[in-house]
């Protein structure tokens, strides 16, 4: 769990230029972290590369918060 969160956090910090402290589980990419729709698409692409997995378009649409991403990734491991 910690490992997944750490890796997700690093990607979010790099991609969205936010502070690590802002990347909380309940933080919404769009509402809280300043991402636009295309940023979220890119984040999902980076998660796919980082965790060597494929996230379908349907599943990707449900990923709105940091916690959504972490839970989704954990559920497929």
């Amino acid at each position: 769990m910690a490992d997944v969160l750490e890796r997700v956090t690093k990607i979010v910090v790099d991609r969205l230029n936010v502070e690590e402290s802002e990347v909380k589980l309940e933080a919404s990419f769009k509402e809280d972290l300043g991402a636009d729709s295309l940023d979220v698409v890119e984040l999902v692409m980076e998660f796919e590369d980082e965790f060597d997995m494929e996230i379908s378009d349907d599943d990707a649409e449900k990923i709105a918060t940091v916690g959504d991403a972490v839970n989704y990734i954990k559920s497929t491991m």
Partner: protein
Amino acid sequence: MILEGKKALVTGASRGIGREVALELARQGADVAINYAGSESKANEVVSEIKALGRKAFAIQCDVANSESVTSMIKEVVEQFGRVDILVNNAGITRDNLLMRMKEEEWDSVINTNLKGVFLCTKAVTRQMMKQRSGRIINMASIVGVSGNAGQANYVAAKAGVIGLTKTTAKELASRGITVNAIAPGFISTDMTGELPEDVQKAMLDQIPLARFGDPKDIAAVTSFLASDASKYMTGQTLHVDGGMVM
């Protein structure tokens, strides 16, 4: 050479306009993946010609209307070339008929290849281009997509759709350094247009101010311009390359 070191994929590159576009990109310094649907031997000829120019090339079979095979084609191109700088969505077919005679199958097959194919290839390649933060997508539309043409309801609808898709894709991807433009060729001498009856060809010639049919080279020259840095401040545009037929 204005495309030195660039990596390109041209769909429908075994014949006609696509073939000439692939050769011109290579002459300008690009390595080129040659997509084809059925004409393997023609595609291999294009590959040989490009290799003779000292560039890399390989042929890749794929029906652009099939999303799975499009995804694996783009993966293959990325594996072979390491990146994709230029996508030319050129693959296209015709199934001409009067609207009142047009079969549903004729409508569907043209829309699937000529419009859905552009959507699928663009979507698949965008993943790579977004990572690169750069890319050039060039869509082959047609002047009839602007003007309409009796007997081509399916083809015209697809090509008009490509023009709209070009504008929307351009708006969505501009922030990632990807430009998307379309070319609307007029009457170009190829296998596809050679099938038209002589009186139809004569009537078309009368409507062309520059008084000749276009050559695939005319389209290839504009494509390499759109693929190059010279066009970096253009996106979402449709360039008419038609001897002045439609203004």
